[in-house]
């Protein structure tokens, strides 16, 4: 809830800060006669609800894309009867899961069995706190930003271990242990790749990371300065999301369904939801860290200048904010498309190959990347954020 409006300018219409819905909303409410505290309190739940809804709708879109793209890869048609092109299929899937019987195995530990999926889902949803869709279009511009996401994503393995243990099933336990091992192994190169980006932007805040990539449009995006980091981050993000080729924790041929084996109904749906929200979140963060976040391939300031519009005019601000949201989501879904295509075209790696890749390849490369970035930053401070 950090408003960065400069003093003296009209709230909500700050040229440098872009569209600030919070300030506009609160001045509106205060104009009606509410106190500043009440206005702030009324504002607080709005962005949270909005982002929650966005995350869930994102999952529905994701499930539909997964079904359609997998069908296309395998030369099938995919869902086509539920709504036009089967767009209502994910909704039908969700409804089915809601009405399914909630089974807890007789010899399972019912408390931990119930708590496990919840612990998997909550950190993923909390991480949406730091995803920016525009200069002020995020729930909270916290200073530790991207580090908060890394910390929160490290809670997830505890939920997986918990559900694996509580199921009282050897496949579940093995799946849970594999998930935790995989998650710990890939967190390190992931954090090192993020660290290189953070070093260039001199800040952990996601907004600052995107701002550092503005200026020359597509040319100033981090992917040109951090190509190795981009690849490392993407591989690690896929491994953290347990997507093929890294879906070992739920490898069907070996482990039935890993830690999900004993789950049914809504508890299974929580895992399902968690994994898809995590995929969208990872794609959004890749776009924030490497693809310029909400930035248009051409700077909107130039476009507004060519069209002869002042950048701080209200209409232009609304348009740029909309363009920002569309660009963020577009970039994220391009990456989701890539992830789905990878899932349906690549075979699964073995557990030893997975750990070899993480520890013997990605970790040294990520360290070298960090070192090279530090060197380049010292040598060319103009290009690598001095």
């Amino acid at each position, binding site marked *: 809830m950090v408003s960065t409006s400069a003093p003296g300018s009209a709230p909500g219409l700050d040229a440098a800060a872009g569209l600030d819905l919070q300030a506009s909303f609160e001045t509106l409410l205060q104009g009606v006669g509410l106190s500043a505290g009440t206005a702030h*309190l009324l504002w607080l739940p709005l962005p949270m609800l909005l982002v929650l809804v966005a995350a869930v709708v994102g999952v529905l879109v994701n499930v539909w894309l997964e079904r359609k793209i997998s069908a296309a890869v395998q030369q099938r048609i995919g869902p086509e009867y539920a709504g036009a092109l089967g767009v209502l299929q994910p909704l039908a899937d969700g409804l089915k899961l809601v009405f399914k019987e909630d089974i807890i195995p007789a010899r399972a530990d019912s408390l931990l069995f119930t708590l496990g999926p919840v612990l998997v889902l909550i950190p993923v949803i909390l991480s949406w706190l730091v995803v920016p869709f525009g200069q002020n279009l995020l729930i909270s511009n916290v200073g530790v930003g991207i580090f908060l996401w890394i910390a929160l994503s490290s*809670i997830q393995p505890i939920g997986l271990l918990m559900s694996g243990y509580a199921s009282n099933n050897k496949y579940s*336990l093995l799946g849970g242990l594999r998930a*935790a091992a995989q998650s710990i192994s890939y967190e390190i190169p992931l954090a090192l790749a993020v660290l290189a980006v953070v070093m260039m932007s001199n800040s952990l805040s996601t907004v600052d990371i995107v701002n550092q990539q503005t200026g020359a449009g597509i040319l100033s995006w981090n992917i040109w300065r951090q190509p190795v980091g981009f690849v490392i981050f993407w591989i690690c993000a896929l491994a953290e999301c347990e997507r093929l080729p890294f879906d070992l924790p739920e490898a069907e041929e070996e482990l039935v369904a890993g830690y999900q084996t004993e789950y049914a109904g809504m508890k299974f749906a929580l895992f399902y939801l968690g994994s898809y929200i995590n995929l969208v979140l990872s794609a959004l963060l890749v776009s924030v860290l490497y693809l310029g976040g909400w930035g248009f391939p051409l700077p909107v300031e130039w476009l507004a200048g060519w069209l002869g519009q002042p950048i701080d005019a209200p209409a232009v601000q609304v348009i740029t904010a909309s363009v920002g949201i569309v660009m963020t989501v577009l970039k994220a879904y391009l990456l989701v498309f890539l992830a789905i295509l990878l899932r349906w075209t690549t075979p699964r790696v073995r557990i030893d190959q997975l750990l070899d890749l993480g520890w013997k390849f990605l970790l040294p490369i990520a360290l070298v990347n960090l070192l090279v970035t530090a060197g380049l930053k010292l040598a060319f401070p103009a290009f690598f954020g001095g």
Partner: protein
Amino acid sequence: MTIASTTQQICFAVLSTTVVAGALGVVLLPNVVYAAFLLAGVFLSVAGLYLMLNASFVAAAQVLVYVGAVNVLILFAIMLVNKREDLAAIPGLGLRRLLSGLVCGGLFVLLIRVAFTTPWGSGPEPVGEEATIRIGEHLFSDYLLPFELASVLLLMAMIGAIVLARRDVFSQDIGTGEEVDQGLIEKARTPLLLDRSAR
């Protein structure tokens, strides 16, 4: 009383209750898996307390290191050797419990006394978002030596763990005293599920 301070007090009450109850559960519960999960809850609540003190970087680091790494490793170790059986009865358990209870109670009374006799000032102003920069500066100036020593310690622990875990470092099996088959490090020579005492 503003909304912010009320929220703060409620959060503090909830977090400290969770810390105390969770810590008691870690010590008193007989089921070691529950104890380990509760430990994660305690670590998370402590992170919440750091957050309330405006130390968001320390809070995130607490979650990353203690919950994400230490606690997951503890759980890992428990689950890899988990047998789901009650611990064997130890002779004189009652006396042992009484003694350890006395020691803990004495320590608790001592800490309470210290807490009440110390004149608590308001302390330095929290630096808030600046904290990350400040921590970095300290780590590379006056705390450089402890920082480096800690990393050397961790390196030693890591090498030690690798030496213990790799059987081909030794020519004899530590457990059984047999010659180690260097070609078959990945395979256990006796099937794990067979009863060893039958041989």
